[in-house]
């Protein structure tokens, strides 16, 4: 009875988990350290890769921070912030995802002792914001601008940036080869530099060096019907029709019905169906089309018909490839063959079907509006090629950014050491609590060179002492020399990265650290049991991500 009179006050729903206060902040920081531990060894040219097996038993080998974090399926509320910043770095610059995560964690780790000693988190946040601003100003000040009017100089800049990006990847051994390839690819694009206009195709087998860049479009031979063997596989200056039409006997409309009264009429209907198909083909043929590509299937009747008339056809071409063909060769994608003119047809200098590895590939080269290109990747294992693709993606993004913003800084920990030195110098002139905090931030920036050394198996303390000394003596670009286990001027050593990458990493890391520090309570509602979370439920639109506003 007493139980009934004095029950516990239930303010929130049963099962709600609520934790708060300073211990909560500290525990959040600890959770982030665990995440950082998972990715820190992947940093730099001597970083190690991770093999991750997801819930569908698919193995992925990667050293890309964003990929690893995505596959880890982090559920801890605070640690999810880190996954978010890796994603944002990926979206904004495309590379530096590992550094942004470990930088954020290092900020937090350096601030932890202060919090434990009772400094209010808000004071720490304020110091972080201020330190970030100082670092960004310094970055702007020392970044080297490259004149854009000299094409040769721009090219060498881009290649150096690509090399630095690829340095830390799986394909580091072939970095010269790939950096050239990547820069060539990006140079082919138009002013807007749309990423989806660079196609990356993977063909198993062969060596990495067999990878080639096609300045035009290449795609794998599509499924074809009988008669395909008889079609010519090589054309010079063909007219290309891009279709969104099924070239096959088909129902004109799904809910159409034909009612006939006599056998003759029935025969006529059958003939008409054939004629509709033939009419389309004849229109194409009359317009002088040599190559017919369609998003939808091209049946065996049409294939045979084309073969008889010296035409090439391919159905079920993936949409992105068709669009790229359109961008390269001109013309339009037709949903009807009515109104076909030369202006709506594309052309290219040479079309051929070639053997690459075990696959047949359709190649369109010498396109009049070659605003697109295709990288045909070769390599052994499938995971290896996937990782190569990710590496190339990062390098391409870096080159795109570098082409848009032309200021660069030296990588290999040089810029980080310089920022650290600058912040430390600045902190000495501050009188308030901020002195210690900005000093701690300066220490956090040293993490990147330290981690580079650790991953390469160097004596980090020794190298860092040397670096600190060099920077104190005004050597701006002294960084870790991975080849010789020493320090070197990384700017003359051509280890360059776009300033934007660094700037974004610093901002993202500090924003993440700030929001982590500003949380003093986590309240977790029990998942609604009537429906499974996420999957079976008509979830609110967007859920923060996909909702078009």
């Amino acid at each position, binding site marked *: 009875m007493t139980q009934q009179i004095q029950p516990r006050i239930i303010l929130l729903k049963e099962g709600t988990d609520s934790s708060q206060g300073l211990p909560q902040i500290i525990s959040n920081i600890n959770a982030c350290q665990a995440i950082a531990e998972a990715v820190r060894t992947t940093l730099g040219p001597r970083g190690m890769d991770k093999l991750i097996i997801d819930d569908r038993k698919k193995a992925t080998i990667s050293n890309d921070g964003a990929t690893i974090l995505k596959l880890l399926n982090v559920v801890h509320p605070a640690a999810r912030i880190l996954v978010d910043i890796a994603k944002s770095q990926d979206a904004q610059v495309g590379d530096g995802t590992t550094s942004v995560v470990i930088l954020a964690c290092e900020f937090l780790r350096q601030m932890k002792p202060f919090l434990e000693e009772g400094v209010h988190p808000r004071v720490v946040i304020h110091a972080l914001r201020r330190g970030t601003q100082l670092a960004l100003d310094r970055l702007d000040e020392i970044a080297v601008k490259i004149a854009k009017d000299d094409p040769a100089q721009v090219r060498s800049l881009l290649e150096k940036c690509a090399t630095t990006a690829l340095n830390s990847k799986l394909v580091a051994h072939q970095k010269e080869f790939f950096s050239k390839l990547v820069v060539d690819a990006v140079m082919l694009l138009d002013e807007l530099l749309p990423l989806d206009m660079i196609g990356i195709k993977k063909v198993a087998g062969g060596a990495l060096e067999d990878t080639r860049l096609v300045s035009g479009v290449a795609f794998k031979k599509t499924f074809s019907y009988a008669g395909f063997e008889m079609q010519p596989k090589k054309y010079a200056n063909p007219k290309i029709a891009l279709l969104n039409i099924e070239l096959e006997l088909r129902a004109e*409309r799904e809910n159409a019905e034909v009612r006939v009264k006599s056998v003759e009429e029935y025969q006529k209907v059958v003939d008409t169906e054939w004629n509709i198909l033939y009419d389309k083909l004849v229109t194409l043929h009359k317009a002088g089309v040599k190559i017919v590509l369609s998003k939808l299937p091209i049946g065996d009747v049409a294939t045979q018909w084309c073969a008889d008339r010296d035409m090439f056809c391919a159905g079920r071409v993936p949409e992105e490839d068709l669009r790229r063909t359109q961008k390269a060769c001109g013309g339009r994608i037709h949903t009807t063959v009515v109104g076909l003119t030369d202006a709506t047809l594309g052309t290219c200098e040479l079309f051929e079907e070639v053997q690459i590895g075990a696959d047949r590939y359709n190649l369109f080269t010498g396109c009049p509006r070659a605003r697109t290109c295709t990288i045909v990747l070769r390599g052994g294992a499938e995971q290896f090629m996937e990782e190569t693709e990710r590496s190339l993606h990062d390098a391409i993004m870096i080159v795109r950014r570098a082409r848009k913003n032309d200021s660069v800084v030296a990588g290999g920990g040089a810029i980080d050491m310089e920022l650290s030195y600058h912040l430390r110098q600045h902190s000495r002139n501050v009188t308030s609590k901020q002195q210690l905090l900005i000093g701690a931030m300066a220490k956090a920036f040293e993490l990147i060179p330290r981690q580079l050394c650790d991953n390469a198996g160097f004596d980090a303390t020794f190298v860092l002492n040397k670096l600190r000394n060099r920077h104190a003596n005004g050597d701006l670009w002294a960084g870790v020399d991975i080849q010789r286990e020493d320090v070197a001027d990384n700017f003359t050593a051509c280890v360059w990265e776009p300033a934007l990458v660094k700037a974004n990493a610093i901002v993202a890391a500090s924003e*993440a650290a700030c929001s982590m520090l500003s949380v003093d309570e986590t309240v977790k509602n029990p998942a609604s049991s009537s429906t499974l979370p996420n999957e079976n439920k008509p979830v*609110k639109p967007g859920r923060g991500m996909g909702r078009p506003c």
Partner: protein
Amino acid sequence: MALHVPRAPGFYSMMKEGARHYAGMDEAVFRNIEACCQMSGMTSTCYGPVGMNKIVINHIGKHFITKDAATVLQELEVAHPAAKMLVLSSKQQEQEAGDGTNLCLMLAGFLLKEAESVLRMGLSPTEVVAGYEKALEMAQKMLEDQIVGQVSDVRDIAQVEPLIRCAVMSKQFGLHERLARLISEACISVLPQGGHFDVDRVRVCKVLGGSVDGSRLIGGMVFRRAAEGDVTQVIPESGRVKVAVFACPVDFLQTETKGTVLMETAAELANFSVEEERIMEAQVRSLAEAGARVVVSGGKVGELALHYLNHYNILALRVSSKFDLRRLATATGAIALPRLTTPTAEEMGSCSRVVTQEVGDTNVVVFEEDNCKISTVLLRASTENLLDDLERAVDDGVNAYKALTRNPRFVSGGGATEAALAVKLAAAAEAEPGLEQYAISRFANALDAVVKTLATNCCLNGAETLSKIHAELAAGRKHIGIFCDPDSGESAVANVSERGLSDLLLVKQWALRLACRSACTVLSVDEIIMSRPAGGPKPRGPGGDDDD
């Protein structure tokens, strides 16, 4: 023989099994107070510019990192009936004033806490309620005396911005300068001549990546979606871009009634698709001839339609949200047509430019307008949670502007108004002859407690700061509150109105009123009867669909 009167059954036997019943001071009143205090205590650390954030994970696993009390409460799903009343009052505050939800909630909590001690002293709840009502009346009058000034021109950014900044400051300290600028510019640009300000006209578009400094204002509407066809931008050499808006899919209409196309002859079969193509082409051609350069569709854009739209060089965009479609129609002055017809000149909308931009790695289509009825704040940040919280801050800022257009008067912020009211109320309580005296002085204490909380959150010693403020006020100085310096991050007691800290009168008025009313309601409950919760599927939770 005496008449047998059966004994009346006890309370529990009258109800269905599982019902709960609490009555009396100890069981109902004090327990309600305790529950409410617990809840308001939860959000009290969020109060003020340097309050702390909370991570709230709601029942579908979505994360919120915020210090907006309304959001925290909404996602918390408070179960206690009395505490729910406080939640409702803070929701009402959000609707009435758009801001000050936390103030309302905290004040109600403190009022109840203070009431507890007088109740234990022996006053009856009705007496406390009467006293509180009286105190509220006095406070509202005193509030009028606290007015610092008023905004003479709601279009003057120099006057508006400081007020918006204070509203945003309490949500996003450190980023408030930038956000306040954006919000005030956005709001002023969409304020119609002589009309009412509509909060719906300031839109927010969130794109992950970059930094908060990359946020900017775009005159017109922004859609996070790429154009459907080949045409990605329309920039006219002169004049305006005509926009046709369709609420339906741009495709062949499907019949609702089940029907089949019946063909009798081969010729009909042969002509069927030719005819279809001809109709669609005629349709698109007539659109093009009417001058439309952009077609916005509420549903999907059919492949054949897209083919002809490309052919006639018309940009096609799909907008799946009905609300967005309606807003776009307002922005461009178009009428959303329910079926695919050629719009007349009046039904056709227009804007200055339609362009595609790459923001981060997202392509957005922007309907630009030089003097627009809708403007969009494009927010950038490095995490989703931060983006969501920024959006809430923008919403609060916009609401503050709306309140400003209704009542341009403002009082000083930073706890100065509360402190001044508390001192005056305490003095007024002394002069009160009846039992209300106690309640009125408790009301003053509750206001003091709010100031104390603010001080604690600003890493100051609460009691010490409060006494300092009281001393300053007693010395005849005015507008003494807590000022938190955004540059050094240090807080101190200062004249806040000199430092430009001001809150809208409207917000304070409503917060006082709603807090007092909800506290009184909770106090006047002396019995709670809860029936057994029904089985079956859970009814739709609070909050519901937030599709704007």
